[in-house]
């Protein structure tokens, strides 16, 4: 992602400051995180203080100020999944990827996060990768599932 691309996104919203969050979301979705130069560019073009953008970027969990992996793994730690062994699944993912919740591996392959309920408790334990739900996953299945991601 370069400055031209950032400018294109800003232009989609005619450079209006009221679309700040939408613009930040578009950059986040396309790039998976918000690089500093992108924040500075948006701040400059929209005439919004950089401080406000940092406040927003740290307020909402949807934004990341650090690079993220190509694949986002969300392990559900809600009550039902917890009872059904989410802890063991998480430990296995930790061992296989070498990262803990909130972390990203050095190859930028995976980012790991725990969440509190994905809304499908009957499928627990649930792991969601790039929006795809893997239900009734066992610690043993986990390696196969992770292997299927490039």
């Amino acid at each position, binding site marked *: 992602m370069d400055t031209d691309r950032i400018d294109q996104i800003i232009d989609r919203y005619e450079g209006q400051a009221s679309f700040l969050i939408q613009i930040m979301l578009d950059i986040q979705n396309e790039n998976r995180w918000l690089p500093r130069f992108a924040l*500075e560019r948006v701040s400059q073009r929209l005439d919004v*203080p*950089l*401080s*406000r953008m*940092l*406040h927003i970027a*740290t*307020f909402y969990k949807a934004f990341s100020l650090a690079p993220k992996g190509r694949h986002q793994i969300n392990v559900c730690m809600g009550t039902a999944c917890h009872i059904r062994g989410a802890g063991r699944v998480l430990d296995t993912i930790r061992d296989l990827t070498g990262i803990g919740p909130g972390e990203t591996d050095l190859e930028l392959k995976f980012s790991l996060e725990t969440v509190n309920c994905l809304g499908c408790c009957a499928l627990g334990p649930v792991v969601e990768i790039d929006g795809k739900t893997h239900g009734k996953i066992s610690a043993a299945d986990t390696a196969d599932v992770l292997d299927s991601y490039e």
Partner: protein
Amino acid sequence: MSDITMRIDDQEVTAEQGMTVLEAAQRAGISIPSLCHHDKLKPYGGCRLCMVEVTAKNRTKLVVSCVYGAEQDLVVKTRSDKIDKIRKTVLELLLARAPDSEILKEFSDEYGADKDRFEKEASFCVHCGLCVRYCAEIKKLHAVTFVDRGYRKEIRFVPEIASKVCNDCKECFPLCPTSYLQAAFVLSQSLISPSESSVTKHDK
């Protein structure tokens, strides 16, 4: 527009339209404790110390006086057992964060607040927002901002801006009710330009 008349602690007080209860009281020489209020800044309502009891149309409620607008015939009580108890608890919660703040200590003596009532969570910042708001509203520099949210919320100097403007200003330092702001500044400074920071200056 015509003035408003109201009663604060059995004293007749006149206020202008658009004033807050706190401003009306201050103008009449009645003191209400406040921490996050600043004459030159927009009402914020962050610390809740300025809580008072108001009665309008036979209904009494607790309101935050620094954001509550003055109204005709309003009856305001700035002290009562209930209010004192609220202020005491607010102070105790703030003291858990900033146990050494001089201004909090002064208020505590008055309201009998116990600084050890709640477990210490010394983040030193009490989220009054004075630094952030002063920099944004008065100086229009936006060099310091809040980041994160909830109990993890904290202030942060924005290095790109702070490195250019803060050394010539520092007007927010005396506003901070704790020592956190200056500490955060020195920390940012040493991270941005280690050689210029006051920490290393002494060694040269």
